[in-house]
């Protein structure tokens, strides 16, 4: 695996909620950290997100969900990625996700989820670590 390859991240806002302060801060911080960042913009359906992820050939899909719809949106994106043959893409994200739901999502194969008060350094470190170990050579 080439060490020079930059991590490609799709930052996505699924569902109807338009509060994107967090998504934009993450996108900005990831870009400053040297990742290649594509931000989908708002009001994305899981289908739109997966289509973009496949098209952009990303390593990571990072979703921001504050609306409480995470138990619908995260699993659906994971499912569609698998159907598209992109099962190695890391699905991570953050927002307002109760502890019990985090556990349930982890069991489904979703990566770490970051709640309020998280430092961007933490999420950047997580993605870098994951990439070093798991990323598929492209």
């Amino acid at each position, binding site marked *: 695996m080439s060490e020079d390859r930059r991590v490609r991240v799709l930052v996505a806002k699924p569902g109807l909620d338009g509060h994107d302060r967090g998504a934009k801060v993450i996108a900005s911080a990831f870009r400053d950290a040297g990742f290649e960042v594509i931000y989908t913009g708002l009001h994305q359906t899981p289908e739109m997100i997966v289509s973009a992820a496949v098209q952009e050939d990303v390593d990571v899909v990072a979703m921001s969900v504050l*609306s409480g*719809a995470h138990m619908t949106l995260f699993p659906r994106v994971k499912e569609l990625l698998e159907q598209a043959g992109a099962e190695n893409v890391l699905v991570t994200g953050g927002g307002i996700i109760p502890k019990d739901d985090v556990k349930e999502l982890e069991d489904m194969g979703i990566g770490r989820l970051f709640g309020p*008060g998280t430092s961007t350094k933490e999420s950047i470190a997580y993605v870098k670590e994951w990439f070093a170990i798991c990323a598929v050579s492209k």
Partner: protein
Amino acid sequence: MTIREKDVPNISEVVKALSERDQEISDLKAKLLKWESTYERANKRKAVFNSGSGTEISPLYTDLDRAEADPELLGLPGNYPYTRGPYATMYRSKLWTMRQFAGFATAEDTNARYKYLLDHGQTGLSVAFDFPTLMGFDSDHSRSLGEVGVCGVAVSSTLDMEELFEGIPLDKVSVSMTINGPAIILFCFYIAAAEKQGVDTRVLRGTIQNDILKEYQAQHAWIFPPNPALRCIVDMFDWCSENTPKYNPISISGYHIREAGATAVEELAFTLANGFEYVEKGLKRGLDIDSFAPQLSFFFDVHNDFFEEIAKLRAARRIWARRMRKVYGAKNPASWRLRTHCQTAGVSLTAQQAENNIVRVAYQAMAAALGGTQSLHTNSMDETLALPTEKAARIALRTQQILAYESGIPNTIDPLAGSFYVETLTDNIEREAEILFDEIETLGGVVPGIESGWFQQKIAHSAMRQQKKIESGERTVVGVNQFTEGSESIEIDTLKIDKEVEKRQIAKIVALKKSRDESKVSECLSALHQACRTDENLVPKILECARSYCTLFEIRDVMQEVFGSYKEPVFF
């Protein structure tokens, strides 16, 4: 005209007074120099002390900071330029309205929460809709999956609106509705529900947020592109000035702009700039400014920096009054007077050690009262985790009641007036806002600013700057980057929305569609479609649709066919 001798000040008396004043100033300057040298030599906690917006704050403010001040700019409460308050008697006559934002699950569930809050002393209602409703989708739409009733109450028709206010007399209780993209539709549901209660629309009191400009800039709950959206808003200004004179057809908001990352100055400037834009749109329509301006209302955030927030509210009133009178030529003082609702800053709350939020909210509420707000929502401590539980909502309401009845703060009007610090801050924030107004004008105005992404970028950059300050420790967030003992686990009870809510809502819509007069529905929707293509005021046609139980999405879809939908310029 003859000048009587005693009217002419004795010249020597004047010279004496001036020279005494000069002596006072020079004495104060000498004392200050001494104080400054003591200050320089002492240890300081930080090199620089900044306000929340990053403006440097001096260690001390004195009479000298006010030497050039114009007393006319301060004035009296209820008098132009309203720095000291929009009303002459303020809280001596009437406390701010305690208006807690609430809504979840179905109309029936929320109706129960409204009755609980009213029983506990809340004095006005405020409706929080769920995301499908906010975006104009019925609960049974495919886009609504997983989101029905989760962040607010699901309202898909007039029937839901009737249930929402069942047993709550709309002629006696004022209602604020937070809705923007489909505001004109929900407004008509509300009017139709009031009609069902037998209430005359002329007595209805309340507010509908209906501020689409800040949606494009910050909250992003839009449907149509700017021009048709603004047309609908002006339609409401016009219709409301005739039919609901006690109702505010807009709440020009800074809260969302602030929460998205803007500084206090940006919040102030962008909100008022949006306000000016709405006024200009009304004037372009040919409306008489004094016929609609008195019903324009505002909504500001109250964040952590106590004095900055107070100064912001005072400066807002002064700027608005001056523009309305001097630039737009309004003659009615009610047109000059800025009235506002405030909400304590959601973004300042933490998930860690959530009980601390009770304290944050209390300080912020105090700033709102000292800033002269007309209406206030205090956040619940658990809102970083979920919608509020009953207990958390009760504590938030009690926070306002303790402030109102125990603190003594409402005993006198604008108690901080004359404070060297507060008056200097008020002047400074006004000056900084004026700089931003000039910048916006250079862009060509608010709408070009939105289309070019200028507002959105400024807000995103301020958000990023804040995040960096928190991560570097420059800005302290108790429980998050300092004093974190006790932050390890988040253990409080939170509200859980029953997954059955979505099913119940869908069943309701199915039943509604079976029981209504379908030919009337088609007729109304068709008439609305026609009307969208003309210049006519859309409220009457949408009201007909509402009365016939057309659903939210059915109405929105017809409008969207003509108006199109908004595509945002994406960047970060």
